[in-house]
């Protein structure tokens, strides 16, 4: 029963790569765009550290690990989830969701994972390389286990962020427009691009629980340098499970409001 999901996903990958090969310039542009984005993100922190030795309690080397973790997560999101999530409100508005609802598999699985962005895949490899570089250049030894836990948490953070993105767009079932929701998502997600330790305590509580943007890379980085404890790991797992449960519940509520074409 569960085996059909990996098999189905392999078919998605095959289609995605053959489609990407048809548009080679887009393939090239995306690589250049992401490299520019990576350079700008690192340069941004590089410039800030010209004027301070610590930012939110982190040194430049620690911030580079955080930034590399964020970039890696972003590359996973762009490659695996973003295209499906981008099209998702349009499918609701046009009634294209019918096509997914009649399938004998989870509709949210197909909607979010069907459109693998093969043209971003190379960026994912580059981002993985950047992450390895940032960890390798860190002056003190970090240890295999903490790094492994960090990478797993970044993966979980990426899935959490993808689910948040879906949650932000689910209200499209009730509203006609979705641009405002999308803009709101982008604005909120900007909070994941900075160390959560720079925010006031009440914002830290929000980005670690209700809108867990900090779980993408900031909190995993914080755990990497502050130490792994059961409570910290438990917090990540609890928030992750809560986000999954909330998304599935919200999705089912949205589906009840769905009235097929042009809803």
């Amino acid at each position: 029963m569960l085996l059909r999901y990996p098999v189905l996903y392999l078919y998605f990958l095959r289609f995605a790569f053959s489609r990407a090969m048809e548009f080679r310039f887009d393939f090239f542009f995306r690589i250049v765009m992401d490299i520019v984005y990576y350079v700008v993100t690192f340069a941004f922190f590089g410039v800030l550290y010209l004027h301070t030795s610590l930012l939110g309690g982190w040194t430049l080397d620690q911030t580079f690990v955080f930034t590399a973790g964020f970039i890696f997560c972003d590359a996973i999101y762009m490659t695996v989830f973003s295209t499906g999530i981008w099209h998702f409100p349009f499918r609701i508005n046009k009634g294209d969701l019918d096509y997914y609802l009649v399938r004998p598999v989870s509709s949210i699985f197909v909607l979010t994972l069907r459109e693998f962005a093969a043209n971003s895949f190379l960026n994912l490899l580059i981002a993985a390389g950047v992450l390895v570089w940032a960890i390798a250049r860190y002056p003190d030894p970090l240890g295999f286990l903490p790094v492994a836990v960090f990478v797993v948490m970044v993966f979980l953070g990426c899935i959490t962020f993808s689910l948040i993105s879906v949650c932000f767009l689910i209200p499209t079932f009730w509203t006609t427009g979705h641009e405002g929701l999308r803009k709101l998502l982008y604005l909120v997600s900007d909070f994941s691009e900075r160390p959560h330790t720079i925010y006031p305590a009440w914002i830290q509580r929000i980005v670690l629980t209700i809108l867990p943007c900090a779980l993408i890379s900031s909190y995993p980085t914080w755990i990497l340098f502050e130490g792994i404890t059961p409570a910290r790991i438990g917090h990540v797992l609890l928030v992750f499970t809560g986000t999954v449960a909330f998304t599935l519940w919200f999705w089912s509520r949205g589906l009840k409001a769905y009235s097929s074409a042009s809803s």
Partner: protein
Amino acid sequence: MTPRLFLTVLSMEMRLAFSYRFDFWVSTILGFVLPVALSLFIWQAIFSESGSEVIAGYTYSGMIVYYILVWLVGQFVQGGEDLTDISDEIYDGSLTKYILYPMSYFLFKYASHLSHIAISFVQVLVFGTLAHLFFGILNDISFTPAALLAGVMALMMANFLHFVLAWPLEAVAFWQDNVWSLHAMTRFLSYFLGGVFVPLAVFPEGMREVLRWLPFEYLYSFPVRVITGETTSVETLRGFIVCAVWIVIVGIITRIVWARGDRQYTGVGI
């Protein structure tokens, strides 16, 4: 294009933008509060951890004023829209109808772009007033008629430069099926090198010298510095000249690319 037609397009586009009220208010209120707050959290941490009172010529309250002004200037420059509808019109073939209209497509799009600026004017008025009431952003600015005139001119040139810069990227749509990545790339660069992410004064001096000859500074940082009276008359004049030269260069590139693309265009979309 007659002034009357220009105004009709302008009013049409404004009505369209206001028809999606939720989108408008979300982008207005949160689009102002969140980015400015995010930048200020960073600088609050830097001022506190470095123990400095002044960084690159800015106090913390000076930073607040800078980020608010750069946001307000950004609204005038970008007008809240990304101009990607030009490539969409090339893709779906709807560019054809504009070619047949007895008016310039370029001017039509500029009228549409200006209509967004008119909406931004409302945003700037509301948030500029609020920002002054809370942070006194106008307290340190001495408005002489000459500085005001220079500020308005810097804003107009920045707006036109932003508009013109988008055209060669959009024209790539004549050959390729996707141009958003080019726009995203330009946006990252212009925000970083134009002084939106951080004031350009925090960059090393050598890099600032290079940035003075690139177009990005003239989109955001330069108008803010002119408005706040931070530039001398020589710097202001040099800024206008560099900005004008970039407008001409990009304009020539656009003309060449557009003419070649036009020959390629079949009118049936991609």
